[in-house]
């Protein structure tokens, strides 16, 4: 059998990885349209045929939500795109989102067998194709919903983690009520990730699917303020609470002049443009940030999003990052796109001071050159300032994109929720149970700012254990056979 396969399949490996049509970079830098156009059906089938359908696929383990990748790809090769999407939905509530924003190069595609000799199969693009196909063709039939269990679960935060948990629990027959602090659902998918990377219609489609599953969604509802976790459990009769509130508290640099007019957190910069639609001002009332030159400080995906948004708002755009290119945490593809579109990179450079005028308006940024020293805790070489190398960059806006920590509103009002010194919630990684009985958490609120898919991976675990918890089953069994349960 193995030999047979080898004889019939190898040709396909020689088909090159199919490129995705993209906008011309200089043109796309001025608009908010999505950058890659997505595979046409025929290209998707060609790409799907490159998959070896490995008996022991490594890609599935590489996926934080363990999508049965060979199976969904097989459906695409057979041109059964609907089944491909259905396959995806068994493991992910957000295939159209993940296909776009997942760092596949360091997950499923990194371990793809095809990738050992050639370019790996474009799993992300295929996932996106299948999800887009069903969305554009009327969606999937409503999935089966288990008999109502009579259990009621509160999901706090309508971001990737919350959507995942809500979808699973609703399918398993629980009554799910979701609370979102902002006026729109989607969390970081809506306020953070820009339109050109993730069209908002896609997020809306995914959230609408939740409503069809019977999930009740309350926007404008700030848990910790409008209602507390204790009230949810004790007064409002929830059997369990899931916290997926993400990492929304922006960090600043603590340098002089940081409260100048013109210094923004990446959250504010992106929220104005994405959530509040300031690019359509004054049809939308939120003021846009109009600048001649925007400097983004940081090297993550959010920094790339900010820098590319700045270009689209008509500004000159520069990224200042204290380490080297290889150490940038952003996805290669995002850095590459930013470079292509004309973002200027000043690497091994760190801001030291925001220079302001008499009216506290920013005139520019004083920066210092850095060099790489000994490795730090993260294993990356620590950047150290080069003495006397300060210089000035003229700019009217700086976007600080050096990370976020979790919003403290919920821990503040639930003192029995244990937090780490970074403000993240303490949760058992096998069950995602927090220190508070009946309360589970997953995503950035547990792990600190990370990726959409890792949040979803944790959320899958949380959903499973919330189910066990409300159904009175033991939560999990560790290697010693000892039970650890929510109420123990």
């Amino acid at each position, binding site marked *: 059998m193995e030999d047979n396969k080898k004889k019939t399949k190898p040709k396909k490996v020689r088909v090159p990885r199919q490129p995705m*049509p993209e*906008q*011309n970079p*200089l*043109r*796309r*830098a*001025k*608009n908010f*349209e999505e950058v890659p*156009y997505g595979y046409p059906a025929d290209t998707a089938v060609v790409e799907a045929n490159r998959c070896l359908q490995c008996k022991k696929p490594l890609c599935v383990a590489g996926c934080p939500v363990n999508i049965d990748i060979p199976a969904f790809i097989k459906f695409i090769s057979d041109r059964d795109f609907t089944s491909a999407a259905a396959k995806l939905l068994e493991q992910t509530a957000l295939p159209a989102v993940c296909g776009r924003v997942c760092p596949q190069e360091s997950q499923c595609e990194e371990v793809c067998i095809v990738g050992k000799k050639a370019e790996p199969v474009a799993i992300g693009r295929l996932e996106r194709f299948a999800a887009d196909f069903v969305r554009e063709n009327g969606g999937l039939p409503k999935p089966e919903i288990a008999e109502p269990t009579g259990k009621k679960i509160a999901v706090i935060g309508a971001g990737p983690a919350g959507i995942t948990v809500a979808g699973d629990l609703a399918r398993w027959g629980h009554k799910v009520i979701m609370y979102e*602090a*902002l*006026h729109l659902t989607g969390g970081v998918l809506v*306020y953070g990730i820009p339109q050109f990377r993730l069209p908002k219609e896609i997020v809306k489609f995914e959230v609408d699917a939740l409503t069809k599953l019977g999930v009740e969604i309350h*926007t*404008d*509802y*700030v848990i910790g*303020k*409008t*209602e*507390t976790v204790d009230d949810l459990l004790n007064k409002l009769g929830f059997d369990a609470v899931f916290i997926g509130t993400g990492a*929304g*508290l*922006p960090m*600043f640099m603590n340098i002089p002049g*940081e*409260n100048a*007019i013109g210094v*923004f*957190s990446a*959250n*504010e910069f992106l*929220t*104005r443009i994405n959530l*509040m*639609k300031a690019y359509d*001002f*004054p*049809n*939308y*009332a*939120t*003021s*846009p940030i*109009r600048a001649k030159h925007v400097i983004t400080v940081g090297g993550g995906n959010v920094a790339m999003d900010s820098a590319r948004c700045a270009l689209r708002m*008509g500004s000159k755009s520069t990224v200042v990052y204290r380490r080297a290119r290889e150490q940038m945490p952003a996805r290669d593809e995002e850095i590459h796109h930013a470079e292509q579109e004309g973002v200027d990179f000043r690497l091994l450079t760190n801001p030291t001071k925001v220079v302001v005028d008499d*009216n*506290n*308006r920013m005139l520019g940024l004083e920066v210092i050159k850095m060099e790489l020293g000994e490795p730090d805790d993260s294993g990356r070489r620590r950047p150290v300032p080069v003495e006397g190398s300060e210089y000035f960059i003229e700019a009217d806006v700086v976007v600080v994109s050096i990370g976020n920590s979790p*919003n*403290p*509103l919920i821990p503040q009002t639930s003192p029995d929720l244990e937090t780490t010194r970074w403000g993240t919630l303490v949760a058992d990684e096998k069950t995602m149970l927090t220190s508070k009985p009946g309360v589970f958490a997953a995503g950035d609120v547990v792990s600190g700012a990370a990726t959409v898919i890792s949040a979803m991976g944790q959320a899958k675990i949380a959903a499973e254990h919330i189910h066990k918890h409300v159904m009175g089953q033991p939560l999990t069994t560790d290697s010693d056979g000892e039970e650890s349960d929510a109420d123990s």
Partner: protein
Amino acid sequence: MDMITLTIDGKQVQIEEGGTVLDAARRNGIEIPTLCAHEDLPDFGACRMCIVEIKGMRGYPTSCTTPAAEGMEVRTETEALISLRNQILEFTASGHPNSCLVCIHREDCERYRPRPSKTGQATRCAFCSNRPDCALREMVLDASSNELNLPTLYSEYKIERDDPFMDRDHNLCILCGRCWRICEKIHGTPAISINHRGRWAKIGSAFDQSYVDSGCTFCGACIDICPTGTLTDRFARWYGLPELSWRSTCTICPQGCDLTPSVDGGQVTGTRMTAYDRDARLCAVGRFAYAQVMSATNRLRHPMVRENDELIPTDWEDAIKHVAGALGDLKGDGFLAIIDEANTRENVFVYEAFATGVMNGRVARIASNCVLDDAIADDIRAGRVKSVLTTGDHLDDEILSKIEHLFVMDCLPSKATSEAEAVLPVAILSEVAGSFRDTAGEVKKLSAAVDPPGRARIEWEIIAELAAAMGSDALRYDSVDAVTKAITDDAPPAPLAGSPRDNLKDLPSRYRGHYLADSAAGLKAMGLPSSPKPPPKEITGGFRIIKKYEVVPNFHMLTVEAPAIARHAKPGQFIIVMVNEESERTPFTLLDWDAQAGTITMVVEELGRSSREVADLQEGGVIAHVTGPLGVPIELPEKGTVVLGGGCYGIGAIYPVARALKQSGHEVIIALEACSAHTLYMAHEFRELCDEVIIATKDGSEGTKGGVQELFTSVVERGTKVDLFIAVGCTFMMRMVAETTRTMGIPLQVALNPIMVDGTGMCGACRVSVGEDTKFACVDGPFFDGHAVDWDELGLRREAYSREEVEAMPQYAGGNGTAAALTVTAGCAAKL
């Protein structure tokens, strides 16, 4: 003409016979104060400020209406005159909101708030768009005694926004009569006059009908000549005094009227007539729409070319290469240029030369306000035209479907721009230098005074560059003068049917084929057509308004159904409101809540767009989003005496705090400030609730003269032992209170009001410096130690978007929903 010699203040002066005493004085450098007089108006004698003493004449005649006579001995500055003038000024000012003029904090206030604040109706100078240019204000401030002892008679007129282009605030009117006199001078029969008599005398149209129906042609002269802020240009008013203005010519229609555009911050914010004179009058389009078309936010800014069925913005180099390449292939094969005559001669000339000389094609000239000729349309339908370059919006869906290759050089988006192979954005009106030939044949010079938006460029330059890129030498011009010189025999443009300066129905409705009313919403009210607009996003769910009324001018009380918030609200907390799906997330203070009824109450001061949206809401309507309760409840001392100071919306904000303090057994003293007695609210409720209510008004019309800082000082000075001060109000008030109480050794809590976006700690827009720390007002506040706040930083950060806030102000006519609500609930205003 015979000259008359007379003596003014001991100086012998001469004036032509028929001149007035005022003329004689002014001509000879002798100042006599006036309000109603204007050099371009006939004498009137309404304001009485110009009174003089004339030997041998009884009383104090007005110099503006007294003809000069031979040998007259006139005195203009006697003690009696000065005293009388001051009294006249007092009477005038008593009918005009004047608290800022007599406020002891005026200079500090204007230092920290150099521009007047946007608002609904102006209740004082600090909220009057005319402050930088107000004749009355200047006179009061210049008068030897600026004490105004007469009480203010505030008329309580609602601001009138139902007419296009103008906001009218009759509370500010001093009945100088300049407006109707200029109207009469320019139009013969004036559209406006003084209606009613005595206390209720008010400028208006006959029977108070809409100005649109009154014969008003919207020339704007009344607005421009008004010495107070009564009549204002809705679009321009909050931009402030223009930086520069110059004389130019309107090229929207072929009449080519002279006008004076004015610029603020690189943007044309308004146009006026060049003189107060019948011949110089403008039509509504020239006076109002001109600036709004130029400032339209949907102006095309970047060149765009089509790629994969999508128009993608690009740079000029790429665009020129792309278009030149495409046009090169289409040369001599059924090319048609559709050229608007509403353009400079130079642009039209170069377009024509390009279409015929370079492209070997044809030209269809579109006269101003006209549409595509049927014959041309038939040619396109019949397939005799292969490619089209259009400079405006002239092609409907059916015609568009017949055009193989379409190129657009225009200023605004249209159906054509969405179908085109390439769209090149162009400069218009005051962005373009050159010349214009009017219907009468006269050539007028146009100068460019502002830059076009984004990357838009001058049309003849784009065409010349395209021609060069296509290898043609025919259009090599190095300056606009070179193009002008090349024009030898251009015909005057086709005249316009009708007279837009005299009839609203004759107004041009299009500019380059685009409906003018799309850019200048006021024109819709005049019956001009406009494109259908997508309706605002539907509100699903939302928060129902149970009760709403205007408690004092600009302050709106709303009770809204929000059970969850009502259950959890605590004193000192706030909410974030989005009236519509397109609104900003705006923080407002909670005034009260009722957990049982599931309602919350807030007080909202109408300032900019977001609070105007709230003000325009009606009882029974819904608010799209209300989020809360946000912020940390105020921390209160265990016991003792607390003095709470409130001003503006802060009066409402301190109410729940006072109640909580009272309930926990504190001694509570309430210090309320208002600019004037008629803007003070809730004093009665506080008297019922608290131990003592003390009041300060800026004009002294009730209580102490001054503000919360004076009240706080007085409490300490009389020997009351105070454990805590709390102050809530505008940044200026809280800052002044902080400065006053800094050395008293009594803690001060203030509720800060920086700009917020999400209100939940996510964005950091609301960061404030308190002591050594940066705090987020939304999650760490709103209450902070007033003595540790960096007030300079807060004040400046609050001004960060002042220009965008003005741009966001609504321009449509009407939408003042408060009037109706007021009549229903006027009784409640007194109660609460």
